């Protein structure tokens, strides 16, 4: 038994190393005073300075923040409703509609929405189309977290409220909402993170107008790699890591949710 544990521990340690070393390298090179991501020269903050003087990057960051706030707001409301509905009622179609956009390859949703926006809505692609697209796939994540929280609860508290004469709305406001609040906030933070990170769906629904962060990073990687990419990566990592950690602290169901994406 003991020998096997050593094998298990070393295999697991390797897996953790595999997960973390690449990210550590990105962060370390963001402080490296060399144009090449090859060897360590000396410490510098010049890539961060360059980043904050890059007007297009700042616009892209602002746009992505606006998109993430709007999309996570819509997805949180619709997703919480979906989570509540799926927990309380036997619904046939809603669960399929909620989970399918999460489970299928992102490119399919991107393509379908591109065709829909251009052909049916005759929309000029831009911030609005991205917000809609992000809301569509974030609803599922919020719904999963909210439903998971409701599943662990004693149904009788809701019935007790109703027996005492509370209307459905009052029951929701005084009992259900406070109970699911951690899950709702965690879902909102998750959606925010997913939205600001999403590349594939954004790539298809963004059109030619406003720059957005993931597509901007993609262009930088494809066209000219400078450690500015490392700098923006490090900052973005800091932001999303904070959000995920807060989300996990609020509701540990988030850890289960991650299995879906």
């Amino acid at each position, binding site marked *: 038994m003991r020998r096997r544990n050593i094998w298990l521990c070393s295999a697991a340690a390797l897996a953790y190393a*595999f997960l973390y070393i*690449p*990210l550590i390298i990105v962060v370390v090179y963001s402080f490296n005073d060399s144009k090449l991501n*090859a060897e360590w020269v000396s410490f510098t903050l010049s890539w961060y300075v360059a980043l904050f003087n890059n007007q297009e990057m700042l616009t892209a960051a602002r746009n992505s923040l606006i998109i993430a706030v709007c999309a996570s707001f819509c997805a949180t409301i619709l997703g919480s409703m979906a989570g509540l509905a799926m927990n309380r009622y036997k619904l046939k179609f809603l669960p399929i509609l909620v989970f399918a956009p999460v489970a299928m390859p992102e490119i*399919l949703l991107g393509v379908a*929405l591109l065709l*829909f926006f251009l052909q049916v809505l005759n929309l000029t692609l831009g911030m609005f189309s991205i917000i809609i697209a992000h809301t569509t796939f974030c609803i599922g994540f919020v719904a999963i977290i909210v439903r998971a929280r409701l599943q662990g609860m004693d149904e009788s508290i809701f019935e007790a409220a109703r027996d005492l004469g509370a209307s459905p709305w009052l029951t929701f406001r005084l009992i259900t909402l406070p109970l699911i609040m951690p899950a709702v906030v965690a879902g909102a933070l998750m959606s925010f993170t997913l939205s600001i990170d999403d590349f594939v769906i954004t790539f298809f629904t963004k059109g030619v107008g406003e720059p957005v962060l993931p597509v901007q990073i993609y262009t930088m990687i494809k066209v000219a790699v400078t450690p500015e990419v490392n700098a923006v*990566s490090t900052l973005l990592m800091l932001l999303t890591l904070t959000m995920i950690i807060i989300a996990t602290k609020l509701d540990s169901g988030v850890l289960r949710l991650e*299995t879906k994406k």
Partner: protein
Amino acid sequence: MIRNGAKENRVTKWLVSGPPLVFLLVFFVTPSLIMLFTSLRFPGEFGGLAPIISPTEAAQGEHGLTLETYQLFFSDILYAEVFLKSFIVASTSTLICLIMAYPLALLIARSEKRFRNLMVLLVVLPFASNFLIRIYAWMIILGPESVFSHFINGVLSAFGVAPVTLLFSPFAVIVGMVYVYLPFMVLPLYTNLEKHDPALLDAAQDLGANAWQRFWHVTWPLSLPGVFSGSVLVFIPVLGMFAVPDILGGTGDILIGNLIKDQFLGTRDWPFGSTLSIMLTLAVLAITALSTWLARPASITKG
């Protein structure tokens, strides 16, 4: 609930489930149907689509509906090859993920309870960093001037093998895929392994089973549902992925996703792009059905 009136209950039901249902019908179901419809149309002369009904009788060009794109798909072996290659890349990535994730998931599941959440969080955290950044990290590691590349080529030259380029190769594509989707494999496996009753292993040991036998006859068969759900969670996104081959792959490393992307943003042949997307959807549905069938309870007790 019934006491308060069935009618009121039904109103509440629709008030709660209605808005997300309508939103998803409009922005998910309709777009998917549009995609199906688009695959049956002719491409326009300058990209996009040809009109369904020709504006004037004398107008040139094709219009109406057709199965032409499907014929094209099945007539050219190139597309079958790309699909086959995508399946190979997806299977390889899934298998490597499984091999790497299993010991990790097992270790977490057998750790003390108070450490488990932290260990799971450590698996999830890298996933929280931007998807492109995680791919980009491997551009640095596998780049020709990197320490890793020098090391590998140093070892190879010691054996008299010519130096290799790691970046822009199928190898880099698979490394990237495994890196991006490894957490998807760890979490369902852990969720499954955590529920195993340790008494089963004790019983097996009392009956004289060694460590390997205990794993192969007890833990592994019981973990199959977790293996299947993790495999699906890795296989499906890898199958449709275009960004990893786009960034880490060479010119020949084209997968289904790259083909679809090119139809929409390169050559602008929407009908054929939609056809490819429909084919990918069918593949995904088939895999989901297969895994559901494999993971059905009967096969677990049999295993």
